[in-house]
């Protein structure tokens, strides 16, 4: 049996890093040289990132990272369909992180009510605004109450918090 957890979010938010923190295999990345001057990174994902966690007995949890740039948004819904959970990673150092979250909430709007979803906000130490309460308020305006956590995806323990929240929602619905 195969299940998947999908990591989506803005470019540079740490999707590839988060998958690497969990995967049993080195993540398969589909990066090319970044030509977007607004992104402070050498590479950017143009296809999917992939990793997996084997549970034994033929059960595998596949980890997918969507390309962050909006020109690839046609892939986001395809990848997220029938996922065990959706992790939306937001980079709080970007100019308008709340607007970034709105993009994903709008794009997945019809899927979210049945989705196990968690919001991970990165770089909150360097950029404390907007606050997690601001993100929670934005979700509440849409009558959503997804777990909203400050994370550093370079820390495996933080990535596990995100997955823990996804699993908890799945356990409540099981």
């Amino acid at each position, binding site marked *: 049996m195969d299940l998947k957890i999908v990591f989506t979010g803005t470019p540079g938010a740490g999707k590839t890093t988060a998958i690497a923190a969990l995967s049993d295999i080195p993540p398969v990345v589909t990066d090319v040289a970044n030509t977007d001057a607004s992104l402070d990174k050498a590479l950017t994902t143009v296809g999917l990132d992939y990793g997996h966690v084997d*549970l034994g007995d033929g059960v595998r949890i596949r980890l997918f990272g969507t390309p962050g740039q909006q020109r690839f948004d046609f892939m986001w819904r395809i990848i997220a369909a029938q996922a065990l959970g959706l992790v939306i990673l937001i980079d709080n150092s970007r100019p308008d992180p709340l607007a970034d979250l709105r993009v994903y909430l709008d794009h997945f709007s019809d899927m979210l009510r*049945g989705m196990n979803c968690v919001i991970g906000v990165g770089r909150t130490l360097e950029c404390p605004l907007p606050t997690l309460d601001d993100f929670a308020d934005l979700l*509440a305006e849409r009558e959503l*109450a997804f777990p909203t956590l400050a994370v550093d995806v370079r820390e495996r323990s933080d990535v596990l918090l995100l997955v823990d929240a996804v699993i908890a929602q*799945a*356990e409540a619905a099981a």
Partner: protein
Amino acid sequence: MSAPPVDADGGPALRIMPAGLSKNDLLRLEVFIGVRSDRLRGRWSLVSQAPVDVYIHDADDPPTIPGSLTRAPVQLRVTESSPDAADVTLLARPLQFDAFVEALVAAERQLAAPATSAAIPISAATRPVGAAPAARAVAPAPWPSAPEPAAAARPTPAELATGRFRLRRWPGANLLQTSRYGLRMASFMSARFLSLRELSQLSGVEEQECARFVSTLIDSTLLRVEPLDTAAPPRAADAVAGAPAPAAAPADAGAARPGRSLLTSLRSKLGIGHGPR
């Protein structure tokens, strides 16, 4: 002191002006005013200018009330430290509903107009025999009687035991930290309505601790509540309490629904075990 004006429902219309308070304080006051309490006779509202019945501030030297040369009859002060419990005019942050109601109950007593002596009640025993009963003139009650507003007190243990709870909004870190398993319990309650027993079974946390955590979230108006005997709807349909059920999602949308054993295996593999039990 003249009696306050009376609104359409018969209760006295009373005005609170907040001054210099934080956004969180103001949000809490708005919620408290909206929830109300059956202990209050008046219908309270938040205002930004005089006339003012209660002035709530957090300064040593409170600012003046715009448009008024006089101090408000009642002054409440918000403080960071725990105040003397006997002094109901001091409210500690984070503002708590019960303490706020206590303060308003005391304010209502202080604001009540004194009984007038213009009319002397005539008792039946002294009325001249055969005379038409005199118009009974009695001192008016300070405020006209008003229908009791709906109760909005902290839930009792019985109410907690007969309800199901679901998050309306994700809690702040300070609330999650009130329980060692707050993050996980809140994650469960973000997915669907759960009773205390269901929450305890899912989380492995003793029901008493679940009740304390749920009460904390209720105090912060973060939970939706439904009666325990409400049939649990399909997950997509209970996303918004009171809202019409959404159309069935397309077959290729939504989340996969693995069994508990698989999820337990995943937890075990990743090293993120269950709760205390």
